[in-house]
């Protein structure tokens, strides 16, 4: 049981570090990277806590995050791509 606690403390500290990076920036990409790290850390934390509670049937949650997390980052990629295209078009006009 105690090893789960040790691991979750490590994950929690990493979450804080990622949050600091997300708040500091400096570039937007750093913030997006921090969001990504935060997402994977949440997956780890949820799985570890499911074991800590002794109810491994709740791993579904972590599975949902593992599958869905990438969509947000890809949406960011498309957002930047669209913005670059819009900027280049408005320069053409």
């Amino acid at each position: 049981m105690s090893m789960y606690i040790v691991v979750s403390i490590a994950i929690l500290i990493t979450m804080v570090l990622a949050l600091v990076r997300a708040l500091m920036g400096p570039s937007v990409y750093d913030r997006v990277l921090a969001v990504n790290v935060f997402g994977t850390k949440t997956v780890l934390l949820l799985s570890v806590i499911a074991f800590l509670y002794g109810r491994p049937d709740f791993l579904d949650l972590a599975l949902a995050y593992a599958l869905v997390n990438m969509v947000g980052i890809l949406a960011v990629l498309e957002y930047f791509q669209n913005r670059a295209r819009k900027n280049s078009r408005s320069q053409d006009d």
Partner: protein
Amino acid sequence: MNLLELLGYFNYWVFAIILTVGLYAVINKNNLIKKLIGLSIFQSAVFLMYITMDKVEGGTAPIIQEGVEGQIFSNPLPQVLILTAIVVGVSTLALGLALVVRINECYGTIEENEILDAD
């Protein structure tokens, strides 16, 4: 009142702070999208309060396990209310954003004071 008992109220304090932070964004920001973000923070604070109330000491999620006797379950009712509210929250947020997009097309800005000046 010892420390642990005080910490028992911590969830409610966080609820109060997040609620007012969201409210601040709604009343004091000019940007309409920022207002909507504030509204969704406000909403999350309410979710947090409901879910805080469902916790029972030593309890577990209200899913009955076969072959385990004498389990304490947390209160399922607030969970049902909030579960539906989250999805409804996203769809109403989308409605608000749609309005903002249309406003931006008509006025060319999403700052509230500039819109009021334009009228």
